[in-house]
């Protein structure tokens, strides 16, 4: 009798405990979907996706902090998910309702097999916004080995605090990015087909960053009509930028893989989706596919750094438009344009033939657009005309002084090339200062002017060497002139010499 009473008391005490244990509100509520094994033919042949999903599901179940909803319980949603990914339903259907599904997160992933190794990637995404809150990928010679590695990360790193940290920061300040696709570019790469696997690996790596929001590529891929024609040697004119931008994805990462006999090159590019502007690009070499996770780790760090700390945009225009833009001496295209520039101070030059170059300093802030409008002033020819008048008067010193002043004032203009040429001509022909002429013509060819003026410069150099008695050097320059500028007037003149 006493025993019965004791049992009843224990049962009575246990009921609230059991009821409390059913309260999952404080737990991380998730469901694990079947892992996609169709990335490579080898993994598909083994039909490894379901097995891996079950193993990952078991890992979550072992941890008290997770409430794992059975896949069967959300079968309808999973089926919708598959249809979205097949392009049969709108991608918006992929974003689930946490209240009705009783889960906040979905664990998705892929299994592929390359060079005899398994590449398994597991990512947990917020079900209503599709951004990755936890990701880990692993390589293993067996599925168990790779899953074991993922298990360790789930146990140790995937905690309530971690989730809170991922979701606490204001999304408005974070850059939103997705990994689009990696093409197998050269013939060897096309045969081996690593692009799909690499994109998944990079997706997982990108999903590790707290400071950026990485949108799961299963969702972003569904936004794109993949039935697009494939061009050789150039990326297709697809509509991915607009589709991503419309859904609030600000950046996309894409690239290509090239396989060589003893090396693999991974090229990557980051585009701003709204403007289509290339904001960052890079290239990484690795010895073998064993380095895929390492290279993805390295690329993801660079991309994260670039998006968060390094890159700003310069929106530049000029009057007139079509001027060349140089940032720290490097040609970055023509106005008007939007250029991605590394954060900090830079020297800006805007140049156009017939106009005085604009030179200034700009300061670029990360994640902001700096606008700059440049009004170019036409080169005033008065000074040049003054030099010509001196020439007409045969006042050679006066002409040289005027040309020097022109060069000093407008040295960066194309017109200064002519000033150099005229000056060298006077020094050689009229002042007989062959050493000075040599220096002037040498300076002219080193300015890299257009072909015609450069040919004139070489002709001047040839004559100066000849007049200085250095016949050997004169012959060398003459041969160069005839070989590379053979159709110019300068070459025609050079042919008349008897050496």
């Amino acid at each position, binding site marked *: 009798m006493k025993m019965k009473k004791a049992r009843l008391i224990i049962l009575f005490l246990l009921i609230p405990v059991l009821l409390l244990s059913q309260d999952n509100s404080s737990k991380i509520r998730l469901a694990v979907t079947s892992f996609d094994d169709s990335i490579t033919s080898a993994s598909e042949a083994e039909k490894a996706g379901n097995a891996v999903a079950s193993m990952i599901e078991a890992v979550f179940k072992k941890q008290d902090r997770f409430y794992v909803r059975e896949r069967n319980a959300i079968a309808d949603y999973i089926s919708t998910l598959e249809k979205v990914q097949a392009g049969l339903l709108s991608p918006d259907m992929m974003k689930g309702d946490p209240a009705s599904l009783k889960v906040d997160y979905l664990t998705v992933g892929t299994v592929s097999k390359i060079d005899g190794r398994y590449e398994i990637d597991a990512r947990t995404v917020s079900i209503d916004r599709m951004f990755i809150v936890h990701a880990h990928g692993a390589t293993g010679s067996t599925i168990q080995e790779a899953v074991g590695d993922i298990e360790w990360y789930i146990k140790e790193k995937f905690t309530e605090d971690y989730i809170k940290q991922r979701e606490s920061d204001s999304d408005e300040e974070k850059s939103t990015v997705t990994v689009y696709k990696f093409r197998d570019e050269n013939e060897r790469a096309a045969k081996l087909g690593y692009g799909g696997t690499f994109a998944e690996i990079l997706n997982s790596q990108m999903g590790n960053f707290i400071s950026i929001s990485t949108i799961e590529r299963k969702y972003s891929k569904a936004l794109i009509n993949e039935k697009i024609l494939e061009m050789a040697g150039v990326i297709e004119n697809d509509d991915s930028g607009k589709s991503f931008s419309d859904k609030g994805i600000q950046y996309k990462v894409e690239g290509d893989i090239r396989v060589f006999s003893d090396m693999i090159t991974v090229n990557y590019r980051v585009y701003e989706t709204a403007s289509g502007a290339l904001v960052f690009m890079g290239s990484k070499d690795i*010895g073998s596919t064993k380095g895929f996770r390492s290279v993805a780790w390295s690329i993801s760090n660079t991309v994260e750094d670039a998006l968060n700390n390094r890159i700003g945009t310069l929106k530049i225009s000029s009057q007139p438009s079509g001027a060349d833009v140089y940032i720290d001496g490097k040609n970055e295209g023509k106005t008007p344009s939007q250029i991605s520039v590394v954060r900090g101070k830079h020297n800006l030059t805007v140049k156009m033939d017939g106009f005085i170059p604009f030179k200034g300093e700009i300061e670029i802030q990360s994640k902001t657009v700096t606008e700059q409008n440049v009004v170019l002033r036409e080169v005033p020819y008065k000074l040049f005309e003054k030099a010509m008048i001196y020439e007409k008067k045969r006042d050679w010193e006066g002409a040289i002084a005027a040309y020097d002043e022109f060069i000093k004032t407008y040295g960066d203009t194309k017109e200064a090339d002519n000033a150099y040429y005229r000056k060298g001509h006077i020094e050689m022909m009229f002042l007989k200062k062959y050493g000075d002429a040599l220096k002037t013509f040498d300076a002219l060819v080193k300015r890299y002017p257009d072909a015609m003026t450069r040919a004139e410069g070489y002709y001047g150099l040839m004559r100066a060497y000849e007049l200085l008695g250095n016949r050997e050097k004169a012959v060398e320059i003459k041969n160069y002139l005839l070989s590379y500028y053979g159709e110019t007037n300068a070459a025609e003149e050079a042919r008349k010499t008897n050496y």
Partner: protein
Amino acid sequence: MKKVIFAVLLIPLLIFVIHCGKKDISEVAEQEFKLSENASVNQEIKKLHEALKTAETDIAKAEIYTKIASIHSEKGDIGSMIKSATEAIKYQPNQYMSHYLLGKSYIAAGRYNDAVDELNIAISLKSDFAPAYFEMGNAEYKRYNYKESKKNFQLAIKYDKNYIDAYNNLGVVCTLSGDLKEAEKNLKICNSLNPEYAIAYKNLGILYDTKMKKNAEAVMNYNKYLTLRPDCPERSLVKLWIAALGG
């Protein structure tokens, strides 16, 4: 009891050994990057940079820079390609190859207008250089100027009758501009030039599937594509396309 104590002591030791056996990702990265440094392609670039130090004339320097740019082009390293081709042009402004390489790199960098300028120079220096027309076709395609793009691919083919990539891209542009018969003809030429040229099968499949509504032909071409590229990134999608057509 002793056995139990031994087992308890052994477990942490085993965990430690297993953990030590796992290589840190940065360590693997270092090894892999080192391996690639010694790869033949990168050794070749290194040698050429060494040769630059002793090159005496502008022509020699230009030739070396052009070779470096060509290797970067093969690797797809756009930043280095632009840098090397620009240097080559500084030393030798009248060399068609460096203008061509610079134009090609500008396309990859999204600077299509600059690409057209450079490719025009390359063509003015060597008017029968098929690859320059091919890249011009690509640049115009990226500017959505399909008429010009088509013209340039046709010119590339005129100067190189076996230019398979040009036939493929011409096929794509013809499809996009509604010239379906011409598209089919050009894509089929790719098949005859090289029966293993996979992307033409995919493009033919899409042409038959979405434009000409020839389902059987579409399925046949999609299947051929998957046979040639069993691990292409869009393999699961292509399978779905085949299934949707009843294949």
